[in-house]
């Protein structure tokens, strides 16, 4: 079970895999995620499902190597299996025809944004997508997002592609030309989600952000994933992962993300010394 059916490097340290998981493929929706383990002694990590192949019983996951578990995943070959995989978890995105929607993605968060872009387009929205990254190589899934967007803007910090600048510059550009946007989705690195949410608020655009706190069970049982939104404690795995971007307590969120920095380092160094990297 949970065999890796294909694997592709799509950007530096970013892999695109398809995994055999018929039940998740059958019942999953855009916006949901899985929790997986690579081995008997492994950690449970959450990853978004980027695409479902219902007939083929497969799901697509795009992950970035940031620590021990994702590094271990990068070592797996086609034909290897994940030890455990649980899902689909979390609430699906609210997909309906809202008029014009703005989709903002950055980094590996684009993988989580893509299925929502696709479904919003399929129900008839006018979709404007902004994808941002430090440099052109890091902006993934450009063609796939473009296929389901009425307009696609790319921003890069170094100007190697599209607008030289950050996603909030592109948001301002759209506002300046008078776009009437009913709803935005913003998914990417925390710092990007924070500033893009502030920008959306400034422009009066309601926005969803997809929060990725540290999780254990992913079923609402532990409270590890709690975040504060509009002054209320919410569990990201069962109440989210999408929340009102205007209301997120970003500083607290970032602080909690760093809680296990030292331990993550120990784990990674131990693994690297074992695999001899």
């Amino acid at each position, binding site marked *: 079970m949970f065999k890796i059916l294909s694997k592709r490097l799509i950007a530096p340290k970013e892999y695109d895999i398809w995994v055999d998981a018929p*039940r*998740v493929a059958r*019942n999953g929706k855009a916006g949901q995620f899985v929790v997986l*383990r690579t081995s008997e*002694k*492994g*950690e*449970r990590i959450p990853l978004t499902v980027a695409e479902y192949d219902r007939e083929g019983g497969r799901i697509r996951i795009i992950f970035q190597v940031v620590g*021990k*578990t994702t590094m271990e995943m990068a070592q797996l070959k086609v034909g290897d299996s994940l*030890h*455990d*995989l*649980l*899902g*689909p*978890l979390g609430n699906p995105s609210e997909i309906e025809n809202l008029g014009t929607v703005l989709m903002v993605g950055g980094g590996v968060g684009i993988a989580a944004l893509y299925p929502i872009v696709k479904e919003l387009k399929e129900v008839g929205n006018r979709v404007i997508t902004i994808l941002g990254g430090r440099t052109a190589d890091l902006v993934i899934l450009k063609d796939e997002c473009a296929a389901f967007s009425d307009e696609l803007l790319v921003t890069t910090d170094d100007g190697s592609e599209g607008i030289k600048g950050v996603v909030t510059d592109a948001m301002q550009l759209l506002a300046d030309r008078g776009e009437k946007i009913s709803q935005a989705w913003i998914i990417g690195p925390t710092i990007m989600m924070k500033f893009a949410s502030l920008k959306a608020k400034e422009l009066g655009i309601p926005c969803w952000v997809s929060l990725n706190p540290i999780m*254990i*069970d992913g*079923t*609402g*049982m*532990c*409270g*590890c994933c*709690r*975040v*504060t939104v509009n002054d209320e*404690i919410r*569990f990201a795995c*069962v109440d989210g992962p999408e929340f009102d971007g205007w209301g997120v*307590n970003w*500083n*607290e969120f970032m*602080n*909690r993300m*760093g*809680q*296990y920095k030292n*331990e*993550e380092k*120990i*784990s990674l160094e*131990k693994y690297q010394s074992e695999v001899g990297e």
Partner: protein
Amino acid sequence: MAPKITPKKTPISEQDPVVRGKNFDEVCLGYTLDEARLEATRCLQCKTAPCIAGCPVAIDIPGFIKALAEGDLPKSWEILSDATSLPAVCGRVCPQETQCEGVCTVGKIKGKEPVAIGKLERFVADWKASQPEEAITPPVQDKGKVAVVGSGPAGLTVAGDLAKMGYKVTVFEALHEPGGVLMYGIPEFRLPKEIVRREIGNIRKLGVDVEVNAVVGRTVTIEELRSQFDALFIGTGAGTPHFMNLPGTNLNGVFSASEYLTRINLMHAYEFPVYDTPTKTSKKVVVVGGGNVAMDAARSALRLRADKVTVVYRRSIEELPARIEEYHHAVEEGIVFNFLTNPVEYIGDEKGNLKAVRCIRMELGEPDASGRRRPVPIKGSEFVIEADTVVEAIGQGSNKVLLNAFPELKLNKWGYIDADEKTGATNLPDVFAGGDIVTGAATVILAMGVGRDAARSIDSYIQSKKG
């Protein structure tokens, strides 16, 4: 009255408090055969056997103790297993002092302790486990198909009993290991996980399929299950932690007991970095609460080498809900108790890490709805305890994943499933429920007892439908 009964229970060996405070091995080492037989002779074999009425699953206590005293262990085991499917577990974790042992005739004699029923039950179960394994041939399972949601004591009991009656049972468990709280909540030093795995192995041998990594309501839908199975049993437990919602709850270093214990038990954080999931190594720990969960969190923190562990509980020692044995063990290990104390604020440093807990002293006022005197804060009595970790163990609510996916199912005003506590019947004829998801957080033996009853009503429901 037999005057020769020793006043005290036969002593049982335990790991030394100083040694055990640094490891996760089981605290209580159990009786030897001679000790167990000696303890068994303390039982008066009362005609009225009040102890049986004190046991939620009505084990024939004098019966199994008599066989043990006579050295007939196979018979003793048979009597036990007639009434309970988890004797090795219940002998260890039942709150005996308020159940079987609480009403034992010997214990009613002035100056005498009751018969150590739990320890004897555990002895017989452990003896059985040490015997060569018998090959179990699964019974023919053609009476019908039943799906069980959740693999805690309630679900496991329903599954085992129905399999024995001739049903094909599939258990769906969300986590990667079956066992429910027995696996992720109660620590190794109180209930070795090997025992839980063994019990689950026995249930599998009866032909029960256990599917892990399957959240019902997400991975498989309720509709799928109801169309594929003749009946459904829901035993999803009370698995969602409550927080007191004090200022500072989301500081780094503030945990729910569920997270703290799940990291340690299910994920083996005490073996980090051999296992990948870490927990915080803390110096000063405050645990809030007075139940078994609080004791488990406090004693785990100690074993993770905390310098000081303090339990704060808002009522007095008389109201402490934890098993008395666990409280004594905790005190022996050096855990400090602050009764009539409640936290009011978590104080952080400039980096968002917890550095202290502000508490207030309480006094007991008028009795509340539960009949216990209500703790009320004493004005001006605030004080601060330094802490880098705080663990809130103040209770859990129902897990909503399944309930949200199942709006037809009737809930009670506390958000638990509205089910008949005797039969497990819900408002839907093919759906039964029991354990913590019906009663709210309770005990292993109650979950198991209702599992037994539910298995019987599921049997009669399916047979009447087919008949």
